[in-house]
């Protein structure tokens, strides 16, 4: 396995990962220079996976309000060097061991869905390189592979149209049925889908796992309630295309910024902030959304009247919350 170490090569991430697991390797697999994600192995078992498309452990814990931002940052600063951030949070009583395990497990499978489905690309394995979170849980590569393919099949069962996975989405102006029933998670997506945000943007904004967000986007699309907003206007397009690689790069390089890179709840964060408050202000705090207070008519040119109506609808919905 040593020749897969230092030099980047072109390979399918999942194939290389299986080889590394079989060899019982310990280290970090960088996919596409890290911009498509990283997989961390300990003795051939997966201890952590990160992807720009999936909120990491830090983002999940802080965006939900479970941990205050400064609590998370302090643990990262203190524990990163010794690869013991997770253990530190438990030792200091901020998290229960079971919560940490649940969060890390969920994050591993979530990010793995995006990293393992990456087509052949530039990959590099750094032997011996450990993740700063430390050893919390371990997952067999085979289990990750099986779950990833099950999730892929599941998405297509819901709605066999993958274009909504990566495109900005927007609610349809008029529902195709007279009565609509949504789950709480679906409601949040509909309210925040503004024709510029993609599923990945929405998952980061709401602190929801990436795959679960994709699943709901497909369900809402299948129900005719959400649609592909098409190529966004130049401003929005730039944000959508540029943001993920930037974030991925910094996530890998800088543990101070949390698992998924730039800190999702940085400015003026109160430890007692509620989840709802975090969400309500979400659009205004995200650098990725450069025009939070602008008009909502930035969609496709042929849909301007719809978007104006949609803006009013969205304002009314927000007022109801």
């Amino acid at each position, binding site marked *: 396995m040593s020749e897969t170490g230092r030099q980047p090569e072109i390979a399918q991430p999942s194939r290389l990962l299986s080889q590394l697991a079989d060899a019982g390797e310990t280290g970090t697999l960088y996919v596409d220079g890290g911009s498509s994600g990283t997989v961390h192995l300990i003795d051939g078992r997966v201890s952590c996976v990160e992807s720009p498309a999936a*909120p990491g452990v830090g983002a*999940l*814990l802080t*965006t*939900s*309000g*479970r*941990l*205050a931002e*400064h*609590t998370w940052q*302090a*643990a990262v*600063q*203190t524990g990163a060097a010794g690869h013991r951030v997770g253990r530190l949070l438990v030792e*200091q*009583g*901020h*998290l*229960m*061991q*079971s*919560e940490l*395990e*649940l*969060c890390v*497990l*969920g994050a591993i*499978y979530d990010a793995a869905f995006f990293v393992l489905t990456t087509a052949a690309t530039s990959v590099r394995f750094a032997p011996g390189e450990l993740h700063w979170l430390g050893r919390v*849980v371990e997952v067999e590569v085979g289990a990750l592979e*099986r*779950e990833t393919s*099950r*999730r892929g099949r*599941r998405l297509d069962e819901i709605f066999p149209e993958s274009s909504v996975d990566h495109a900005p989405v927007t609610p349809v102006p008029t529902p195709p049925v007279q009565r609509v*029933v949504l*789950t709480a*998670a679906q409601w949040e997506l509909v309210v925040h889908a503004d024709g510029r945000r993609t599923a990945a943007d929405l998952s980061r904004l709401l*602190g*929801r*796992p990436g*795959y*679960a967000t994709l*699943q709901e986007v497909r369900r809402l699309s299948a129900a005719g309630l959400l649609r592909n907003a098409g190529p966004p206007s130049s401003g929005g397009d730039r944000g959508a295309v540029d943001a993920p690689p930037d974030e991925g790069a910094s996530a890998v390089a800088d543990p101070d910024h949390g698992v998924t890179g730039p800190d999702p709840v940085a400015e003026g964060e109160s*430890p007692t902030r509620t*989840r709802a408050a975090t969400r309500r202000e979400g659009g205004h705090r995200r650098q990725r959304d450069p025009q939070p207070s602008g008009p909502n008519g930035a969609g496709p040119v042929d849909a301007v009247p719809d978007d104006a109506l949609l803006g009013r609808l969205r304002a009314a919905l927000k007022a109801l919350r």
Partner: protein
Amino acid sequence: MSDIDDHLARTMDLPGAVGASLVDCATGLALGSAGAVPGGDGEAAAAGAAEVLYVASGRAPFASARPNDAIEDLIITTASGYHLLRTVPVAFGGQLALCLWLDRPDGNLAMARRRLAEIADDLVRPRPDAPVGSAA
């Protein structure tokens, strides 16, 4: 043995317990399991439990008859057993379900339901004396 496994082992101490699992409702993934699995296929059983809960919470009007009401558990009885699905709300990233399969002759449904609620609570409820936001 992980802490998740410890909690599952506690559910298996209940009289008549045949199998238990912890399922991520959003994805249908089993995050842990103990004992036997209905149908012998853990992945299918977990996905099925998530599906049942999704339908119950989304389609059944009684699931949220009042504001802030939510499903606590679903109980399915069969001729030979009981299946308890206990929802576990998690602050981060959605909802889990603690699923317990009981043998009908030995299982005590009322006791199991109460015990399962306690174990589910222990899984995600922070200790009251835990310091909040005072690291380092």
